[in-house]
């Protein structure tokens, strides 16, 4: 398989790139949903993300990428318990995936040949501590969506089938992309995504030419191109690592908490997840920008992507939820 297009070489699309970087800074934000027209680089960005993520330490043979051998699930038969450094897993959930493949199932081979009951982990196990990417998420079959909702919420995959009773951690960042023209996403699933961004094709001809130029260079002059941009990618990765270190010490003034609540009340977003995500994302942003203290500008910058998908949709409002949020944020923050 070819190396993916480098993240830093993506032209424009700042909102999308920022959202993805922030989930890398704080995986607790809860994922990104990218909605937009065809040919705007949605899939490219997600596939490029893998190269940006800092590696993680895992037990070598653990099926769920546990950080310590004590954390490995008891059903896993471990070979070597050595700790090794691996790239953060970015697992693709293909549209046609069966339930068995997603949650895991009885290992038929072992059952048939040796008559043993053993568990064969699925995609959710492999995505633990990493990313789960669903392209065309709005076309995903309903029963798979239901499974994901449950696991994304609890961070644990519980398998009760075929006489197996197994549970294992499944904490992952959900990344979805799709084209709204092909169908809407259920609000329950929408809500599970921390951030949502809308992407559009660039309007400016210069920017468009630049997109084509880079893509062309990527295809025809691969080695040189990758060399230039992998250095750029490495810079972003370093900043992400620094931001992660800075994040716990980041000061959050009480006034900002009140602002978060005020914005969400004014917008009438359901539940408290809006406030929490808004705050977390703003903190991640402040850390990524190298600040020590959170301020209102961070809220302003991040509010549209953290809240736009949590509003009661008013279909008669042509302006779209982004504008509405901008207006409310300005009113609240003054």
């Amino acid at each position, binding site marked *: 398989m070819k190396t993916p297009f480098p993240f830093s070489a993506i032209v424009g699309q700042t909102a999308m790139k920022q959202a993805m970087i922030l989930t890398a800074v704080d995986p607790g934000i809860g994922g990104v949903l990218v909605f937009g027209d*065809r040919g705007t680089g949605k899939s490219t960005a997600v596939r490029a993300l893998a190269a940006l993520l800092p590696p993680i330490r895992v037990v070598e043979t653990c099926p769920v990428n546990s950080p310590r051998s004590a954390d490995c699930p008891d059903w896993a038969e471990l070979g070597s318990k050595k700790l090794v450094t691996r790239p953060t897993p970015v697992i693709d959930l293909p549209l046609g995936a069966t339930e068995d493949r997603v949650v895991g199932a009885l290992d038929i081979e072992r059952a048939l*040949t040796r008559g043993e009951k053993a568990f064969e982990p699925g995609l959710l196990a492999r995505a633990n501590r990493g990313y789960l990417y669903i392209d065309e998420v709005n076309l995903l079959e309903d029963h798979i969506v239901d499974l994901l909702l449950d696991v994304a919420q609890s961070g644990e995959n519980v398998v009760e089938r075929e006489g197996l009773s197994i549970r294992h951690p499944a904490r992952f960042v959900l990344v979805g992309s799709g084209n709204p023209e092909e*169908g809407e996403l259920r609000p329950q699933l929408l809500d599970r995504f921390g951030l949502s961004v809308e992407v559009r094709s660039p309007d400016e001809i210069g920017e468009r030419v630049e997109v084509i130029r880079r893509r062309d260079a990527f295809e025809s002059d691969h080695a040189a191109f990758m060399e230039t941009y992998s250095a750029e990618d490495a810079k972003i990765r370093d900043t992400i690592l620094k931001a992660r270190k800075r994040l716990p010490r980041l000061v959050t003034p009480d006034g900002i908490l009140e602002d978060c609540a005020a914005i969400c009340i004014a917008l009438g977003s359901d539940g408290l997840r809006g406030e929490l995500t808004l705050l977390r994302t703003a903190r991640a942003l402040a850390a990524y920008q190298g600040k020590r203290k959170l301020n209102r500008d961070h809220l302003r910058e991040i509010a549209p992507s953290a809240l736009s998908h949590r509003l009661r949709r008013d279909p008669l409002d042509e302006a779209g939820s982004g504008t509405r949020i901008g207006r409310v944020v300005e009113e609240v923050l003054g």
Partner: protein
Amino acid sequence: MTPQTESWNLAALGLGLLSFAPGYLGGAIIRMRASPQRDEVLRALEPLNAHRIHPNISDEHLFGGLDLAATLKSDHIVDFKGLFDDHFIAILSMAERCSTELAAKLGHQLDLDVGHCILALDEGAEEEEATPPALSERLPFHISPIGKMPVGWRPVPAGTALVDPQSVRCSIDDLNTVTALASQFGIDSMRAPLLALRVARAHAAFSGHKKLDQRDIEVAVSLVYPQRATQIPSDVEPDTTPALEPETGAEPNADTPRDIPEGDMLVDAVRALLPPHVLAGLVPTGTARRSTGQGAGQKRKGNRRGRPLPSRPGRLDGRNRIDLVATLRAAAPWQPIRRKQNALSSKLLIRPSDIRLKRYQEQSDRLLIFAVDASGSAAVSRLNEAKGAIELLLAQAYADRDHVALISFRGLDAEILLPPTRSLVQTKRRLANLPGGGGTPLATGLQQALLLALQSRGKGLTPTVIALTDGRANIALDGSADRARASADAGKVAQLIRSHGISSLVIDMSARPQSGLEALALECDGSYLALPRADAQTLTGAVSVALGV
């Protein structure tokens, strides 16, 4: 050269390029009905040795899976290879029937850019019946020659590769030209210029050049752009070539800077090939996109097979299907014990009690058909309310599985403004401008709604007809302006609706409730609601309550 011959010549060239570099280009849509002409076209692609696939192909076939027969025979798991494991050249027959899901999967395979090639045979008869955009977007050529095949037509023969298309040099000016041209024709997607560039490179390599020239680009844009265009470039716009990028200086081979006349030539080349609906201005300007295919809302014909439930033990009685994998799973743990009992057999031992049956829970999607009276002076407000209500219902419908459709009737006719859909985005676009005024052909409107209801029922939906009118029917079915005949006709259609067992709701929007409409509701065995001055919110509320949405 006539446009017909021109289109055939282009097709010949496209096919030649395709058989020259199938994996590099990625494929084509061949939009022709099954005919000797199409056979002739396909003959050109025979050397590719393509594998035929159909829209209902299973994922195991495409991506590999458990080979059950071999597994049972050999006692250990045998997987069979998926078609996409190698460079795969596929002919997708009846591509217009291809589901969005399959298109998305195929599109993903093309995105990997490892040399797959998909030839989609599209037999769509109507404009709406087309290959899903997720796939057509990624295929460079849309071959649909018009008119009779010229005598002695043959595809340009594929030569041997003199030059690797990948290595063909292209200058920054070429990039500029290709990109600028795409925006002039209102092509939003960034994939189109990239594909055009690939085609240009393939054409250069095909003719043995190492560098793109004017002819390569002309061929590329005339092959790639016409079917994707959404607008005709306005002549007043002079900036055919954009302001040159600062990088131009970095490119040493700026020996032939392209100036405006050449760009104009390219514009003309593409313009000559634009499909008629673009020329007729049917794509509304302002919406820079065109949905060639249907959105998922309409595309999901019939019912989903239902959501799979866990399999149950049971007996095969010819009506239900066995879940083989589940059966194997059930049998697997017992194999060592059974083998001990039955020492003679080393094969898999399956007892009737192991049999597991597949079960699905089917749920029928509901379709709300709004038939809206757009006649006379009150039309504008009523239509607006109906539009509002539809959008609100759709926005609410996310939890339910509702589709909506909109029919408006006025003057002598009824037309389907919004075919059944679930997509809010699509709905908004279609509802943007609705005409109003004229007589009230209530019967025609109801008839259209009935037809749509029957059609959609055939596709597995459960239709409900909602008629919004002020009830003064004055145009009969045959178009004559005769009040008595008109209401008699409306009554007849209402009875038809009842006899087909389609549930209905009549909403009376006149200032004073009409007894005639209540009678009409009785005749179609539906509910009657008098909602003078209803706005979108009340309307939605009333419909929700009446139908239990």
